[in-house]
């Protein structure tokens, strides 16, 4: 069974690569970067930022705002919304600092995209959540502490 899944996965990946090579995916290939594996596997925040944004110089900004609960009843589903009034947004990332792998999710934005990203994340324990926005080549952040009553990793 596992072998079958593996074959299916690798087959899909190879057909995709062929299609991309033949230029069949032209409208999508502009932004269709690979999944940032290095960032997701980093165990520290700085490493992840370096891997995803290419920089870890961060500036606090009040132009980045987070809409999230102060206290999450269920750590398995914590709604987070990042908004920014900055222009020229290139990317948005969310890190839950005390998770085993802090880098939770990110959004790559191309021209015509907006400074809004909302998602629901898992949190193992009470932790600050850092939200990063890259705009105009610079990295901005905002953070909020979210209390978690029941952890949502594993179990």
């Amino acid at each position, binding site marked *: 069974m596992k072998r079958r*899944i593996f074959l*299916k*996965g*690798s*087959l*899909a*990946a190879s057909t995709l690569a062929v299609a991309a090579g033949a230029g069949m995916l032209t*409208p*999508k290939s*502009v*932004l*269709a*970067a690979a*999944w*940032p594996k290095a*960032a*997701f596997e980093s165990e520290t925040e700085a490493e992840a930022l370096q891997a995803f944004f290419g920089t870890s110089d961060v500036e606090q900004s009040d132009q980045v705002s987070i809409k999230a609960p102060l206290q999450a009843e269920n750590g*398995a*589903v*914590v*709604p987070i*919304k990042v*908004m920014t*009034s900055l222009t020229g947004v290139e990317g948005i990332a969310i890190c*839950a600092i005390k*998770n085993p*792998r802090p*880098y*939770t*999710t*990110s*959004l*790559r*934005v*191309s*021209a*015509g*995209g*907006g*400074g*809004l*990203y*909302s*998602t*629901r*994340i*898992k949190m193992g324990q009470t932790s600050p959540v850092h939200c990063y926005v890259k705009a105009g080549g610079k990295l901005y952040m905002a953070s909020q502490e979210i209390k978690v009553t029941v952890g*949502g*990793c*594993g*179990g």
Partner: protein
Amino acid sequence: MASTKMKIKKSKSGGYEVMVLAKHPMETGLRKDKKTGEKIPEHFIENMEFAVNGEVVAQANLGTGVSKNPLIGVGIPNAKSGDTVTVSWVDNKGESDSAEKVVK
């Protein structure tokens, strides 16, 4: 098996906001099967792309830290009424799904 729902609403800050609800287990690879005691392998959405009239405007990278049945919202400030919004995702096993909707 897979189902993806999409909703487009007007954003307060102008433009539109796309909300996508993808049905997906988002397994972390750390959880154990209660009956067999074996680890459930990782199974999560990796990339989700948002396109307006065929042009990709945003790509979300998801990991195991995103909740089950992810609900993802993305702003599309330049979309107009009548534009077609397409969302498609691929997971780490190569499974994929997509949804399409016209902006009202």
